[in-house]
Each structure stands twice: as structure tokens, then as C-alpha cells.
């Protein structure tokens, strides 16, 4: 397989509460075209920072070293530089309770050296009514060679669909807006596309006219996925996209992502804290810890023959349905 992108010596630093945090340290990683690559790690590991860096969504003020090279031939001829087809994530918080370092960018980031050339137009690509602050606080992709990444090439699904969706706009229109922006469609064509996309994520047509608050968490995540793939991205990034959902809905969303990725030949970056869940979906797994890439390998090798002690510790900490209950280990009983 050819590389879709190759990340070389990527480091990201930002300031939080006046303290410089090194979120990523010298990450080197190739993402193959068409593969499903899981990035796993605990809180503060830098996994979300890596996802945001690849999508060009790091907040301005983040200091980025290293390169992310895109394989030009993987993309359609760029017409103009537009931001990724994402639904912006407003909430800085993740489901994880973690130590105070790491994690996704927060509003406290400084304006750094990137300057205005890194400015995404707040009106381009993002959804109307959603752009105050969010878009202009983000910076463009880190230094890239080869080709600028056309916005339609990356779809991004965040953990919390409630913060990704406009609460006062019917979800059908939100999906149509992405298609209209990135595919140069008129509203009629974009609405038709929206209808098709809802069908692809297995939501009934009536959902077109629903508002986010009328939908369940799983349904909202399906809408967010429909919007993320609306422009036909080559790369889909799912950042803890199922972590806020219950086990049954999580399994449904993972199946949905697996099917859509296969149908469209997309490359998948699946960011998760859950190594068992990642292993059900990924061809390869990258393990991050404290901003460093600890281990990268085929899923089977990572799960059955991890090379690094930390990977083994993560596997051992998994409480599966075949693990020996703690109750027995302690010899306690009622």
C-alpha cells in the first residue's frame, strides 16, 4: 500500500495555565492509503493532539515542529485551500478524567508565531452559526510538503456530537451545508445528497427535519458522521467517537464506521483510549504515551506479541469477559 501521509518528527507544544506542555514529541508515523489505523493512549498521551495536527485543527499558538507530508496523488486537484469538512468541537473536555497535562487544545492557548497566514477563514467550510471563535482560533496545517490539503479530503468526528451540531438548525440542512460548501452543489442538490447520506448512516428520511435535541446520542453521532463524510473525504478521523455512548450503541457506531470506510475506500484514523475496541476495527495500532509513539504494529502483533512493556500493561489492564475477576484474585466474597 502507498502512504497517504507521512508524519516526520512531529512535535507540538502549547502553553496551558502559563506552563509549556509538550503534547507530542518527535512522532514519526506513516499512514497507508486505505488502512484503518488506531491511535491509542491514555489521557495526556497526545492522541487527540495528533488527530488535530493531521486535520490542521490545532489552535493557533501551538508550536509545531516536523512535517506532515501528504501524497499528492491521493487527492483530487485542489481548487482552493478550504478547511476540513468537520463539525467543530466546542467542548475542550473529554470523557476522560486525567492528569492536568496533555489532552486537546484549550481556550487558554497563546497566539503563537504562526501569524495570519495560518488563519482559516471563519466563513469557509464550517457551518454557519458555529464559527464564532472556533474557526479563527485554529491554525492551518503544520508545514506540509507536496500539496495543500483540500478541505474535502479530511472528515472529522468528535466524541460529543451535541457540541458538534448546531442546536437550532435541522440536521439535514447541517449535512447539506457541508456538501454545498465542499462540492459546489446548489441547495437542491445538497439536500438530495443529505438525504442519501442519512440513508447511508441508517437514519430514516424524517431525520432530515429533526433538530439535534430530538435525537439520541447515537443518532446524533450518526448525523455527525454523515456530515463528516459528506464531501467524500479520503481520510476519516474519529476521535473517541464512541466513548460517550453505551456499549450497544458503541458497537453499532463502530460497525457503521467500518462499513462506510470500506464502501468509500477511506483511510481511517481511529483515536481511542480502549485497546480492545481499537483491536476490533484496526489493521494497525499505534500506542502513544506522554506524547511519544511507544509502539506501532499490526493489530495482531500488538495484541498477541506486544514489544513494549507499556503496551502489555494496557492489555493486562483490560477487563474483558474472559479476565479473571478481581474478586477471585483477592479471595473476597460476600
Amino acid at each position, binding site marked *: 500500500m502507498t502512504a497517504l501521509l507521512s508524519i516526520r518528527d512531529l512535535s507540538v507544544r502549547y502553553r496551558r495555565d502559563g506552563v509549556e506542555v509538550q503534547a507530542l514529541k518527535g512522532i514519526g508515523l506513516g499512514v497507508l492509503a486505505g488502512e484503518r489505523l488506531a491511535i491509542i493512549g491514555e*489521557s495526556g498521551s497526545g492522541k487527540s493532539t495528533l488527530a488535530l495536527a493531521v486535520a490542521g485543527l490545532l489552535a493557533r499558538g501551538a508550536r509545531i515542529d516536523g512535517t506532515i507530508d501528504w501524497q499528492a496523488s491521493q487527492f483530487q486537484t485542489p481548487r482552493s485551500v478550504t478547511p476540513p469538512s468537520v463539525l467543530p468541537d466546542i467542548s475542550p473536555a473529554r470523557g476522560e478524567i486525567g492528569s492536568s497535562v496533555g489532552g486537546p487544545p484549550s481556550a487558554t492557548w497563546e497566539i503563537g508565531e504562526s501569524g495570519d497566514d495560518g488563519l482559516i477563514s471563519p466563513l469557509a467550510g464550517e457551518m454557519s452559526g458555529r464559527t464564532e471563535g472556533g474557526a479563527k482560533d485554529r491554525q492551518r496545517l503544520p508545514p506540509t510538503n507536496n500539496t495543500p490539503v483540500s478541505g474535502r479530503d479530511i472528515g472529522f468526528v468528535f466524541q460529543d456530537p451535541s457540541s458538534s451540531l448546531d442546536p437550532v438548525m435541522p440536521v439535514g440542512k447541517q449535512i447539506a451545508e457541508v456538501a454545498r460548501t465542499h462540492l459546489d452543489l446548489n441547495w437542491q442538490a445538497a439536500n438530495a445528497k443529505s438525504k442519501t447520506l442519512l440513508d447511508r448512516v441508517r437514519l430514516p428520511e424524517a431525520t432530515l427535519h429533526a433538530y439535534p435535541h430530538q435525537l439520541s*446520542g447515537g443518532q446524533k453521532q450518526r448525523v455527525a458522521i454523515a456530515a463528516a463524510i459528506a464531501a467524500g473525504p479520503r481520510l476519516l478521523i474519529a476521535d473517541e467517537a464512541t466513548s460517550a455512548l453505551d456499549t450497544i450503541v458503541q458497537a453499532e457506531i463502530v460497525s457503521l464506521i467500518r462499513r462506510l470506510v470500506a464502501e468509500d475506500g477511506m483511510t481511517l484514523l481511529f483515536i481511542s483510549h480502549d485497546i480492545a475496541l481499537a483491536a476490533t476495527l484496526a489493521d494497525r495500532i499505534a500506542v502513544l504515551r506522554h506524547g511519544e509513539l511507544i509502539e506501532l504494529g499490526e493489530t495482531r502483533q500488538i495484541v*498477541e506479541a506486544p514489544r513494549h512493556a507499556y503496551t502489555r500493561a494496557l492489555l493486562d489492564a483490560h*477487563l474483558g*469477559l*474472559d479476565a479473571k*475477576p*478481581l*474478586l477471585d484474585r483477592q479471595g473476597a466474597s*460476600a
Partner: protein
Amino acid sequence: MSVLAVSNLAKRYRRGGEPFAAVDDVSFEIEQAETLALAGPSGSGKSTIARLVLRLIGPDAGRIDFEGHDFLALSGAALRARRARLQMVFQDPLAAFNPRATVARVLDDPLRMHNIASRTERPRHIAALLQRVGLDAGLAARAIHEISGGQRQRVAIARAIATRPSLIVLDEAVSALDVSVRGQILELLLDLQRQERIAYLFISHDLGVIRAIAHRVVILDAGRVAESGDARTVIANPQSAIGKALVAATPRLIRNRP
């Protein structure tokens, strides 16, 4: 005698103008030093049951007996006294505590409110509680927002055991923790249970965690009990449709164990 006996509990809400049963005729008991898990998908009624047991909300029907007393009939000083025996730990301790309060302040409150220790004795009590949950006594002076998520959850457990409860309601108490921290917190809970004979009502959507720590499980679906029994037996061979779906949806990690 069971620590907690819940009988025919019901709670109805209105959703979109339609009446809807969040909890519908639910009964279960928990013995001393026993962990009973409530499992089920989102909206199955798990957290509503926790809130009913804690009397944060009132039921539409049913009875709750706690330590042999009709818990719903208690009020005033009798209720306050009984409440000291029933504690809780939630998913996010940062949301449960004033983030700017110090650890000492968080632990001082229950000791003061329930007259467990005099003002001069309290610092020693606080130090002992911190040590009991595996934290350094020096942490007392730190602010809640300064300590890690795992430490915070240990402080929440320290606060819960400060009043020497017979029952602690744990609502997704380990769900947001990193896996490495989660194991340690589960070990701590088991250790406390063995030593202090505390019963746990353990609410979780994660059957793997339930299987690791719970003696018995009640699987809920749409507010009703779908099945219940020995945790490992039920999870190994679920009989209800929802039990089967939950087991099937749990990610498997297939490893070649040496």
C-alpha cells in the same frame, strides 16, 4: 438482614408530553459486604434508581428499606443520621466537588456535619482517611483542581467512607478513569469492602468491569429488570435479549496468553 431492600420501585417522567416509565416495578436486595451491579444501556433506568435510593428524587411507587428502616418515611434528624450510613461516588469528582476547595476541606465537611470528630481531632482524621485510600497525607493542602483524576476519585472514596457507611452507591465511578488507574481504584474498593464490610450498589455500562468486581448483577432494560443473578453466571450465559445484546457488544481482546 439485607442492608438495602428495594421493592416495586417506580418513577415516571414525561418525555415529549408522553408519560414514560424511567423505573418500572424494580426490586432487589443487597447484603452486607456485597456488590450488586446495575447494568443496562443508556436510558435503562440505572442512574434513576441510584438517585431514588439516595433520595435525591422521590419515587412514584415502591418502598426502600435501608438498614431495616423505611428509608422513604424518614425525615429531619432521623434522615440526616441515616444518610451518614449511605454514601455515593459519581463518575466525575471534579463536578461533585468545589474545584477550588482543598482536599482537607472536602474531607472536613462530612466529619463536621455528622459530628464524627471535633475540630482539633479532624486534621488527624483527614490524614488517616487519605492514608486509608492510598494517598499521601500531604495532599490535604492541595486544591481539588490541582490533583489528578485518579487522586480525585480516591478523595471521593475517602469522603464517602468518612462517615463509616454501610452502603456506597457508585455511579459509573470508574468509567472515566484511564485503564491503569481504574484497576487500582477497583482494588481499593474491594479492599475497603473486605475490611469495613461495606456494600456497594455499583452502576456501570461496562460488563467487563462488573464481572471483575460484582457478586451479583441486575440487568435493566427500559426501566424494568430483564434478568438478575450471579454476575459471572449471567454474563457467561445471558437469558434476556438485552443481556445477550450487552454481552455481544462488549469488545473482545483475543490474546494468546502464555
